């Protein structure tokens, strides 16, 4: 890769172009991107937090509403960062406007970083919206700001990369929906959003430890509430490591032109 200062400046402008284009895209279609998670999460807060939660009692030393808020925020971040990149990049492929980028001097690294940043931006914005909505239902206390921010950014980055890889391999719109529906949603629901995995029998608790979302949800819960079912430092290191591996895999795919060049 060319790293001359002049080219670094070009790459920076190109990166900002993709990022601003992505932000413009998801804010322009806010009724499809920002409103649905706000409505869905409000329903979760009302039904699981208020109506059912009041009968469940405490979980992990907190009332049920307080316990599920971190998980639901994280669920929104995961779904939206993934959804943003997979739909935007696949649509770029589908309409062939990806060629606008491929003919330009933009490096593969810049293209990848631009789309990841777009996914992270939407993930964090939706996370903020859901957090603000949760304040109508419960008090929110941030135990460790650094861990909270780190987990959100790492998780949004990881799932943005996941969305990018999905879009690279996708050939039709069905392929874009398969992973979120059949893999992401079950993993998220079984990732300790609604319960502490300590409540599970030993076998299922052990199985849950193979679910990467358990570590993200718990690390985030630790950031907000100060409690976690798993080791937080270990979780952060594992998520960061996995993010790096996924990043270089996506970069390799992009550089060899998988799914985008003949």
């Amino acid at each position, binding site marked *: 890769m060319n790293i001359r200062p002049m080219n670094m400046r070009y790459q920076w*402008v190109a990166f*900002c172009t993709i990022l601003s284009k992505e932000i413009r895209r998801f804010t322009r279609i806010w009724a499809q991107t920002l409103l649905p998670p706000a409505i869905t999460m409000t329903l979760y807060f009302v039904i699981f937090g208020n109506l059912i939660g009041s009968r469940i009692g405490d979980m992990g030393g907190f009332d049920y509403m307080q316990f599920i808020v971190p998980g639901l925020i994280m669920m929104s971040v995961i779904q939206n960062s993934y959804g943003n990149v997979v739909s935007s990049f696949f649509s770029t492929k589908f309409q062939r406007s990806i060629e606008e980028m491929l*003919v330009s001097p*933009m490096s593969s690294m810049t293209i990848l970083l631009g789309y990841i940043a777009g996914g992270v931006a939407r993930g964090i914005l939706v996370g903020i919206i859901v957090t603000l909505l949760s304040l109508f239902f419960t008090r929110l206390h941030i135990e460790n700001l650094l861990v909270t921010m780190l987990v959100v950014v790492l998780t949004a980055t990881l799932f943005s990369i996941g969305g990018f890889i999905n879009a690279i391999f996708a050939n039709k719109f069905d392929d874009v929906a398969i992973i979120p529906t059949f893999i992401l949603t079950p993993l998220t629901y079984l990732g300790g959003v609604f319960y502490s995995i300590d409540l599970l029998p030993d076998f299922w608790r052990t199985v849950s430890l193979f679910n990467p979302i358990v570590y993200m949800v718990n690390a985030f819960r630790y950031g907000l509430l100060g409690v976690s079912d798993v080791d937080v430092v270990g979780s952060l290191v594992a998520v960061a490591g996995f993010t790096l591996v996924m990043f270089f895999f996506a970069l390799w795919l992009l550089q060899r032109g998988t799914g985008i060049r003949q």
Partner: protein
Amino acid sequence: MSALVIRNLQKTYRNDVEALKGISLEVAAGDFFALLGPNGAGKSTTIGIISSLVNKTAGEVEIFGHDLDRDRIEAKRRVGVVPQEFNFNQFEKVLDILVAQAGFYGIPARQARERAEFYLRKLGLWDKRDSQSRMLSGGMKRRLMIARALVHDPDLLILDEPTAGVDIELRRSMWDFLTELNGQGKTIILTTHYLEEAESLCRRIAIIDHGRIVENTDMKSLLDKLQVETFVLDLAEPLTVAPELGDIEVRLKDSLTLEVAVPKSSDLNGVFARLADSHISVRSMRNKSNRLEELFVRLVERNLPGGGGQ
């Protein structure tokens, strides 16, 4: 300085189709170059490789001295591509498409807007700047693709069938615009099915067929290879049989139309003198087909399996 140098370019697709069988080509800076060939000959693959949309199997591409593999960024900055099919986001606004494209080439937003405005005005699209691109007519979409290819001020402009499907008036105005760009020093490479377009615009021409260059020369030398030119004569009075005009082949198409195949060694004065001797008066005359078209068909036929070529 050469704008483009291609050496032994080869491309075999995954389905084992050998689209390019080692073509070499050189286009001088400032040239107006036509790349012709029948459908499936390898034109779009060649352009795809130059514009980094297709991975080559082997060979080298240099753009203004910058190797596309080793000095990719500098090489790509110098090329603007107008593809055959529309490839912009249908839901984006016209101005946004151009500004984003400039951004992809590292041009800061304010400068990008100035350039976008310049080219949108130049190509008559400024009034449509806030329209979604899907709302444009076919001709407008073509002009938008040209504006987009120019927004980063490339030295080499490659156009793949730029006037396909546009009306005659717009085609003429696009020809004028391309001639103006070439006059400003931009090198232009054009593929087209309108051979009249290539003949009237381009100074040099390469013909590609079955993944090989079968001709690469200047337009005048190529046209000089034409040994016989066919003219259609509209007659003032009807005839029942074709007249004898010596070594000139004559066919009576209908009672008022003659076709005469004139060898290069003969001149038209002789043809008219003989017609006058036979008391045949000619009302009007035209070429049977475009001269380049005749040559093109002959070259491509020669290259067919079982044809007379090497």
